[in-house]
């Protein structure tokens, strides 16, 4: 039951964040600002997938940290490229 509740909450969070991302270019006029917001949302969504869907929260720490570092580092690199 707990797994179902966690997965369902995570799915809702992911859907809502996807819809929010679509509206960034409309509600935020400055490109650099919505790039940062969209990439922060990528990190949050990635964390949900890694920890809840992939269940890596209870997996060996190495694999979780490796996946989490990917979803933090890649958007960070992309934002540096876009904002330079």
């Amino acid at each position, binding site marked *: 039951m707990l*797994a*179902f509740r966690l*997965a*369902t909450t*995570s*799915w809702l969070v*992911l*859907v809502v964040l*996807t*819809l929010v*991302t*679509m509206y*960034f*270019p409309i509600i935020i006029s400055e490109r650099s600002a*919505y*790039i940062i917001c*969209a*990439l922060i*949302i*990528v990190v949050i*969504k*990635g964390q949900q*997938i*890694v920890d*809840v*869907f*992939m*269940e890596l929260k209870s997996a060996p720490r190495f*694999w979780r940290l*490796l996946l989490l570092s*990917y*979803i933090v580092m*890649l*958007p960070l*690199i*992309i934002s540096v*490229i*876009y904002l*330079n």
Partner: protein
Amino acid sequence: MWFFILAELTVFAIFFIGFAISEQQNLEMFSQGKAQLHQLSGLINTIALITSSYFVSLSLAAIHKQAANKAALLLLGAKGFALIYISVKIWEYFSLFEQGITIETNTFFTLYFLITAFHLMHVLLGMVILTFIAKAAWQGKYQGKSLSGFEAGASYWHMVDLLWIILFPLIYVI
């Protein structure tokens, strides 16, 4: 499987970084290219893949409780949403072809077709893997045995979802 997943993630990271660098060098071309994409199809595909991943997650929880038939049916649901993704993607490609847009149109569309088609191939491979583990679950092959095969298949599918989560804002929104 984890090393395979990491290798795939690395290849896509190179694609994404390459896309961002090209965009910075051709801002106007990329802006015009993104305006020609069907944003709603990107949104539908994102929700389809997220929902598909959700079903795989529920399926994993079911197999942990030894509910193998339920797990197989949930995987069938996951494949249903993956089919929505594939249908929308193919429609999107043909819609662009009808406008005379191909992989040779410009740098934006070269990267767009390469990255999304490469991702689509991963979705297709993921569907084959889901079919394989669903069949094995339905036949009771995971009863009282190691679930590592099932877990590896599920992880692969979540990786496909994770990649789209990055791809979607990069190509359709930003």
